[in-house]
């Protein structure tokens, strides 16, 4: 792999950009691998990368039914933060945040991580109390999160309407300065390029249609659109389709899949300096480096694999955006789309071994797993390589729904991006 650098750009500029390599190859699948990862989103590609880099396992295939990064990785609003309430979540999401800071250097790929601050608005007394509780809990866990009075919130984000006559008055905000955004596609591409460079096979346009088990019940491989591919270990990292895949191995999951939508406006000059979220009115907004406002809506109420959601859902979000930022009321929206998110009962992910030997699952990220990509991939690779969880993902088991040892961010955060 040729290293990307300022010198490479200069060299290529001199010769008409004819010398750039392909970022990853498209090899013919082998008949078997040590590890097969199902799903080439950020979490799956990252898992392959850390398996190869930190655990010396290089005979790996990442098998993807569409194109890499075409699932939720390429559809999300890219908000990154780690200010979750419970210790387990704090550990996991902050592990990811620490990895984000150096990810561009690590992958030699600009993932455009921008710590521009994530500000979470609070609109009523209950909101304020719960935000302050989060702030205290976060600080005890060594995670930055601070309280801003309305004036300070306005100073941090000038377009914000803090008038007391607003329909959703701003009573303050919680600010995580290390939070921000990153370029979603670049995360998938960067992991893919770095993993492929270490010999990982990335096999696109190849749907996994079955998970095969031997006489003793252990995993032996996967059936795919291109035939059977043997594997000693299989990691399912398929987001909204996890239930479908785990059903192939006879495992019923504590998951439901819902459509979640986002939309972007026409591009405009820089106007919006940070990320603003409001759980109460259900709106999320930031501005991409291209200039588009990036806006996230809520999930539909019914389960679906349709990758489209109801119009009334995005309308509701835009109503809230226009109330909070009257300056945007004449903006035109350019595109909207949906992804399918896999939601657990406690709104925390599952990163774990399964009852089937050799089968591992990384799922349940629901509406908020992009931020966790590097951390999730890192500890999941550890789990697969050692057949035992990393300390950081010890609590994120499948068994917790039997034992009752939930990580109940559902109650803590109501929604989470």
């Amino acid at each position: 792999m040729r290293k990307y650098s300022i010198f490479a750009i200069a060299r290529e500029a001199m010769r008409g950009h004819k010398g750039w390599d392909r970022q990853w190859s498209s090899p013919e699948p082998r008949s078997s691998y040590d590890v097969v990862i199902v799903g080439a989103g950020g979490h799956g590609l990252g898992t392959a990368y850390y398996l190869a880099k930190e655990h010396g396992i290089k005979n790996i295939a990442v098998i993807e039914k569409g194109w890499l990064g075409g699932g939720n990785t390429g559809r999300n609003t890219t908000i990154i933060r780690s200010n979750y309430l419970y210790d387990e979540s704090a550990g996991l999401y902050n592990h990811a945040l620490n990895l984000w800071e150096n990810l561009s250097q690590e992958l030699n790929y600009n993932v455009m991580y921008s710590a521009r601050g994530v500000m979470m608005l609070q609109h009523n007394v209950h909101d304020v109390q719960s935000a302050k509780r989060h702030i205290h809990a976060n600080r005890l866990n060594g995670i930055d999160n601070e309280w801003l009075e309305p004036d300070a919130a306005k100073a941090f984000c000038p377009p914000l309407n803090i008038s007391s006559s607003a329909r959703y008055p701003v009573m303050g905000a919680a600010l995580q300065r290390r939070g921000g955004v990153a370029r979603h596609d670049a995360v998938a591409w960067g992991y893919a390029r770095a993993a492929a460079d270490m010999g990982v096979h990335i096999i696109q346009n190849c749907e996994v249609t079955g998970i095969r088990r031997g006489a003793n019940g252990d995993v032996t491989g996967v059936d795919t659109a291109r035939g059977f591919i043997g594997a000693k270990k299989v990691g399912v990292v398929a987001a909204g389709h996890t239930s479908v895949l785990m059903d192939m191995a006879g495992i019923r999951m504590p998951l439901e899949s819902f459509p979640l939508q986002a939309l972007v406006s026409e591009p405009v000059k820089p106007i919006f300096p940070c990320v603003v979220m409001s759980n109460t009115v259900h709106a999320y907004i930031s501005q991409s480096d291209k200039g588009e406002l990036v806006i996230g809506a809520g999930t539909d109420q019914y389960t679906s694999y349709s990758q489209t959601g109801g119009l009334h859902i995005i309308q509701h979000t835009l109503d809230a955006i226009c109330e909070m930022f009257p300056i945007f009321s004449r903006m035109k929206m350019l595109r909207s789309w949906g992804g399918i998110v896999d939601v657990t009962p406690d709104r925390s992910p599952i990163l774990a071994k399964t009852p089937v030997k050799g089968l591992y699952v990384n799922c349940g990220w629901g509406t908020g797993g992009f931020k966790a990509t590097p951390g999730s991939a890192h500890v999941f690779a550890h789990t697969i390589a050692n057949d035992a969880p990393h300390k950081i993902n010890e609590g994120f088991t499948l068994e917790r729904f039997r034992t009752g040892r939930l990580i109940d961010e559902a109650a803590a955060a109501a929604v989470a991006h």
Partner: protein
Amino acid sequence: MLLIRCPYCDESRPEIEFRHAGEAHIVRSDKMADLTPDEFERYFFLRDNRKGDVYERWRHIHGCGRFLNAVRNTVTDRFLMTYKAGEPRPALPDPQAQAAATEGNGQ
């Protein structure tokens, strides 16, 4: 937005009048206190979450207020039927008949 036929009101009404209420035909035990952890997990947390035809509950919350059941395809979001809560789980219409019916609609 979906259009949902309420079997009590006998009318098709917009989705915002309804609240989705999860997978249907999950029976609550009359002896909840005696359930083993496995049984409780199955009842409370595990879901089919199928890609295809699913049985689900809805409540006509801004209408008659009653619970109903539906069969819906989670890829097309098309409702195959709705029926009253308490009625037995209907067999799924066979895919060929379904395809024929869809073609008919298109003409």
